[in-house]
C-alpha cells in the first residue's frame, strides 16, 4: 500500500493550567491516493481535533502528518477544508469566495483570465455558477455548502478534508449533496478524508471507514473496508447485502462495544 497521507503516532494533549486531557492517543493511519476515507465516532471523541491536526490548524503534541512523505505542520491549500458550517465570508459574493483561494494558490501559475475561468469551472462542478453574484445570505444552506466544496476543490488540494460537511443540512439536501460529492470523487479522483457521525453516509461514500473509540484518549478502534463497486447508487444499495453487513458492523462498533457514555 502506497502511503499518500500518513498519520504517524499522533497524540494530542490539551493542557489548561495544571490540568491536562489526552484527547487522541497513538493515531496511525495510511491513506492511498484517490481513496475516500471516513472517520466516524461519537461526538467528543476528538475526530474534529484529528481533522484540525491534519489541516495544520492545530498542532499534534507528538507524532506528525506526512503528505507525500513530507511532514506538514501548518495549514495550506494542499489540504483544503470544507467546514461544517460552510464558513463562507458573508461580505463576498459566491464568486469572490471561491476566487479568494484561487488568487492565492495560482497567483503565479495562472493568468487573470485563466483564474476567472477556473473559478467558474469549479462553480460549474457543484452546479452553482448561476449564483455567482449572490452573497451567502441570499442562498440556501445546501447551496452554501456546495460553494464551500467548490472553494476547497478550486485550490486543487492533494487531500480534501471534509469536516462533517453535511451535518447542518436537512436529510433531503444531505442526500443530494452526498450524491454530488460521490460524483465529484468519481470524476476528479481526489483523495478525501471525511469526518462524520452518520453511519449510512460513511458506508455509502467511503472506501474505508475508520472507527474511533470514545474519548478521552481516543484511539482508532477498527478500520473497515467497504468493498462496494463504484459508482454506487443509493437506492440499489439499500438492499445490498455487503452494504447492510458493513452498516451492521459500524453500528455494532458504535452502539455495542463503544457506547457513548455521557460525561459525568
Amino acid at each position: 500500500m502506497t502511503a499518500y497521507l500518513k498519520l504517524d503516532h499522533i497524540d494530542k494533549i490539551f493542557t489548561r493550567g495544571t490540568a491536562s486531557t489526552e484527547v487522541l492517543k497513538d493515531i496511525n493511519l495510511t491513506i492511498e491516493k484517490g481513496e475516500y476515507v471516513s472517520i466516524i465516532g461519537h461526538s467528543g471523541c476528538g475526530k474534529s481535533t484529528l481533522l484540525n491536526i491534519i489541516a495544520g490548524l492545530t498542532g499534534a503534541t507528538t507524532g506528525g502528518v506526512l503528505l507525500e512523505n513530507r511532514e506538514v505542520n501548518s495549514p495550506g491549500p494542499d489540504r483544503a477544508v470544507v467546514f461544517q458550517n460552510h464558513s463562507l465570508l458573508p461580505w463576498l459574493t459566491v464568486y469572490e469566495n471561491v476566487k479568494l483561494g484561487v488568487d492565492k494558490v495560482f497567483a503565479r501559475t495562472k493568468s487573470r483570465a485563466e483564474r476567472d475561468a477556473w473559478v467558474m469551472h469549479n462553480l460549474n462542478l457543484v452546479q452553482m455558477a448561476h449564483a455567482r453574484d449572490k452573497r451567502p445570505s441570499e442562498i440556501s444552506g445546501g447551496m452554501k455548502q456546495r460553494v464551500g466544496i467548490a472553494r476547497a476543490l478550486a485550490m486543487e488540494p492533494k487531500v480534501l478534508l471534509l469536516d462533517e460537511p453535511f451535518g447542518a443540512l436537512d436529510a433531503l439536501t444531505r442526500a443530494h449533496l452526498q450524491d454530488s460529492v460521490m460524483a465529484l470523487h468519481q470524476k476528479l479522483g481526489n483523495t478525501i478524508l471525511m469526518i462524520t457521525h452518520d453511519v449510512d453516509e460513511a458506508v455509502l461514500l467511503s472506501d474505508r471507514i475508520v472507527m474511533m473509540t470514545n474519548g478521552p484518549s481516543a484511539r482508532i478502534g477498527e478500520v473497515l473496508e467497504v468493498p462496494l463497486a463504484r459508482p454506487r447508487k443509493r437506492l440499489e444499495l439499500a438492499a445490498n447485502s455487503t452494504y447492510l453487513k458493513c452498516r451492521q458492523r459500524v453500528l455494532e462498533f458504535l452502539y455495542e462495544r463503544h457506547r457513548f457514555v455521557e460525561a459525568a
Partner: protein
Amino acid sequence: MNMPATKIEVETATPAAIAAPVVTMTPKRPPRAEAYARMARETAVRVIPPLVVIALLTLVWELVCRRAGSALPPPSRVFKDTKELILDPFFDHGGIDKGLFWHLSASLQRVALGYSLSAVAGIALGVLVGQSVWAMRGLDPLFQVLRTIPPLAWLPLSLAAFRDGQPSAIFVIFITSIWPIIINTAVGIRNIPQDYRNVAAVVQLNPLEFFSKIMIPAAAPYIFTGLRIGIGLSWLAIVAAEMLIGGVGIGFFIWDAWNSSHISEIILALFYVGIVGFVLDRLIAGLGKFVTRGTAQN
C-alpha cells in the same frame, strides 16, 4: 399491508395537485396611482408627528416668552432679529464678522481633520489591542482611565503644548473621539469568528491580506459603531473648545453673541449646531450601512 398505504398516497396527492397552480400564480401589480398613494401615506406617517410636536412646542415657547420682561426672546423675535443671518449666511466683513456658513465650515474643517486623524489612529490601535493579548493587557487600563477625562480638560494642556488655538482644537477633537473608535474596533477584532481565521489560514493569506480581506470587513459593523459615537463626541467637543480658543467657528460665534447679549443669535446658532450634528451622525451611519451591507447576516 401495502395496499392501504398506497391508497393514502393517492388521496393526499390529489388536493396538492389542485393547490399547486394557486400558489405559483404571480400576484398582480398594484396600479401606479395606488403605489404613489401608499408612498405618500408612509411619508406622512413619518413627517407629520414631528411637525405637529414642533409646532406645539413653538407655540408654547411663544406664549411663555411673549410677555414683557421675559429673559428669553419668543420665536417671533428670534426670527426678526436673525433674519439677516438666516437669509445671507455667506457675507464676510472681515475678522470674525462673517456669515454663519463660514463659522460652520470652519468648525467642520476642524472636526474633519481631528476626526480623520482619530479614525485612522483609533482603528490602528483598536486592531492592535484586539489582535494582541499583550497589547490589550498593557494598553487597555490606560485607555479606560484616559477616556473618562472630559474633552475640555485636555484644552489647557494642548494649548501649552501647541501654543496655538487651531492645533489645540483639533487635538481636543482627536482625543475626544478616539476612545470609542479604539474600544469598538478592538471588540470587533476580538469577535472575528474562528472559522474566518481558519479559512484565512488554509488559503494562506499573509498578514496584510488578512487585515484587508478578513479583519476589516469582519469588524466593520463594530468599527462603524465606534465611528458613529466618535463623530457625535467630536461635534460636542468642538463647540466647547471653540468658545475658549476664539476665532472663526460656531462655538465662538455663540460665545461672542452671549457677550454682545444677542440671545436670538445664540438660539439660531443652536439650531444649526443641532442640525449639523444630526447630519454628521446620519452621514456616518449611512456610510456604515453602505460599507457593511451583507456582513450583518451570516
